[in-house]
């Protein structure tokens, strides 16, 4: 029990916070594009948001990789399953935009946005679960 309390109270880099900011940036870019589709929206804003979000995600992963000790088996267990789920969701949304003959440049930005989104959400989920887990074997999901 003492070990768990210290795990809950320990200081970790703001991995979840940075990922949430990145998700917010993806949503801002996504809403901007969606508000201007099916026309030809300007891409400066969404490109800027997706670039900033992707950069944040890379920084986030770098920060996370330096955390020791950490419940990596639990992290990867959750990340793997969540990534699979959110890739399905992102794929479905991508299919909708392809089906609607979205212009190539706009589609490229949308796909990039969906990819960053599909990485950020599992990162938030996995980090939140793993930060409270004792480093060691993973808990089976079922």
């Amino acid at each position: 029990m003492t070990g768990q309390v210290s795990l809950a109270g320990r200081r970790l880099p703001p991995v979840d916070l940075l990922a949430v900011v990145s998700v917010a940036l993806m949503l801002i870019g996504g809403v901007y594009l969606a508000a201007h589709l099916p026309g030809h929206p300007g891409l400066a804003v969404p490109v800027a948001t997706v670039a900033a979000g992707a950069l944040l995600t890379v920084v986030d992963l770098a920060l996370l990789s330096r955390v020791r000790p950490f419940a990596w088996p639990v992290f990867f267990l959750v990340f793997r399953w969540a990534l699979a789920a959110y890739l399905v969701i992102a794929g479905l949304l991508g299919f909708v935009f392809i089906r609607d003959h979205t212009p190539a440049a706009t589609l490229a930005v949308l796909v990039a946005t969906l990819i960053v989104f599909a990485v950020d959400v599992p990162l938030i989920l996995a980090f939140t679960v793993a930060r409270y887990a004792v480093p060691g074997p993973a808990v089976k999901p079922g």
Partner: protein
Amino acid sequence: MTQQTAAVPASPGSQPAPGRPSFEIIPRRGLIPVAVVLAGLIAVIAANSSWGVDFFHVVGGGIWTVLDLFLGFVLGPILGRLSIPARIEVTTRLMPKMLLIMPTVVVCTLAAGWQLALQTGDIQTSYSHHGWIVASMIVVAVMAVVALGILEPANLAVLFELKKPQPDGQVIARLMRRFFYSAGVTGALQVATLLIMTRLATA
């Protein structure tokens, strides 16, 4: 995408949870109906079926809104007054299902809603109520940040905590505080969604 589920508001102490039932964090059997629903969604979008996308948008949106409001403002407070074993019993049975239901419902609502707006022309910037459409997107975006950043991670972390031989009551209490505050926000935003959608429907 709102992932609002009722969960265990733990006692401040760090006592082991009494009488915890065994449970699956992700119920494998539930993946079959999810796959069927998503296949149906893909089919109606591929076929460009007006009735199909309308069905998925209306049914999905209705379920999403009702679940958020009911779980956030009705079931959540009730759970807070139940005994600890009862809260754990409800949580371990309800939350795994919600982890499957909510993302499915949300993706159906959004994908079908987008197609519906394309078919009706509501998505066009020339549409007289386009501002309301954009407002609905902004509301969904804010709900998504709250749900994906706070609600869903807290729910998942609680389930993993309850899987431990000695769940930590303080950890669960901390996560549940996050849950209850964010549940109020998403509930309020669902009211905004209702206002926008009824406004659009009668425009």
